[in-house]
């Protein structure tokens, strides 16, 4: 055996038990100190806001692997525990529908093509044009008549009763 290794082996014979002893002593001391301390009282004295103010949350979040976290979540089991009925009951569908921009929807989706194919051809197009032009002229003439008659308050725009009139195609 190498004389240097011999020295090392002899040293280890002394240092290993000493290290184990030191470990045991330290554990015992820490245990005694912890028992002696009232941790709740210490925690009560800690200014958590000051500590949190020193924490760089952004840096912390950057170190979090969100994908790994998500991978650990069983979405199906979460969804299975959700009762959709109360959620749906809380949704105001009418309000939701009024928020839809139908013009944009028709212009930007295939819905427009479906409507165009299902709503007649030249006849309905001509009818729409005639009707809308007539309404435009009606309003134009009406505005001029109101000016000529110097009416400050225009009359009612529609009959008072609710109209049970079926909309015409």
């Amino acid at each position, binding site marked *: 055996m190498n004389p240097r290794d011999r020295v090392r082996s002899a040293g280890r014979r002394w240092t290993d038990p000493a290290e184990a002893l030191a470990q045991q002593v330290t554990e015992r001391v820490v245990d005694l100190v912890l028992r002696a301390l009232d941790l709740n009282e210490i925690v009560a004295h800690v200014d958590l806001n000051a500590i949190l103010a020193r924490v760089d949350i952004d840096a912390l979040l950057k170190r979090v692997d969100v994908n790994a976290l998500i991978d650990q979540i069983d979405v199906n089991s979460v969804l299975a525990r959700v009762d959709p009925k109360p959620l749906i009951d809380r949704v105001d569908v009418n309000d939701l529908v009024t928020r839809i921009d*139908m*013009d944009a929807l*028709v*212009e*930007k989706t295939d*819905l*427009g*093509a*479906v*409507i*165009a194919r299902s*709503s007649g051809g030249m006849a*309905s*197009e*001509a*009818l*729409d*044009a*005639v*009707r*809308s*032009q*007539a*309404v*435009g*002229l*009606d*309003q134009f*003439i*009406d505005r001029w*008549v109101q000016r000529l*008659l110097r009416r400050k308050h*225009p*009359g*009612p*725009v*529609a*009959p*008072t*009763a*609710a*109209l*049970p*009139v*079926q*909309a*015409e*195609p």
Partner: protein
Amino acid sequence: MSSTRPDVVTYQGHYAGSVSRFTAYVIDLAVSTGVFALALAAISFGVRVVTGHDVKWNRSSIVVAVIFVLWQFFYFGYSWAVSGRTAGMAVLGIRVVAADGSVLEPRRGVIRALVFPLSFLLFGLGFLGILVQREHRALHDLIAGSAVIYAWDARAARLRFLARQAELEAPAAQQPPLTLPG
């Protein structure tokens, strides 16, 4: 191409104006006169087939005039009493309703047809109400307790217009750009 105005959608149920009503009346006059002429021609043809004699209708004949007037009463009265609209009104998307906006009773439809000629008296002054009356009601409307409103679904028309626009633009957008040789 149709040009359905976006603001037109708000007029459904509103009192109809003079142009829509006049245009509808012109169409009705053409339809009713055409149907009347066709009916006379059919009667003439039938009489000739059955008896072998030609029947010629004199337009200035009082009998023809009376039948024509009765036919006009029937055409307008029946249309208003049954559905609140004539063929011309259906084209323009307008409808006769009671003054309060409820569905017109058949009785009022008939009365409207009967008093309709009164609006022609005094150089058509009865029609002036359509222009100047706050609810656009003519003399015959005031007597019969009726009003005329827009009843067509301009919102659907607007969507149809947009849909057609989108469909017209779609193939143009899908075409590859034209490249010239050389």
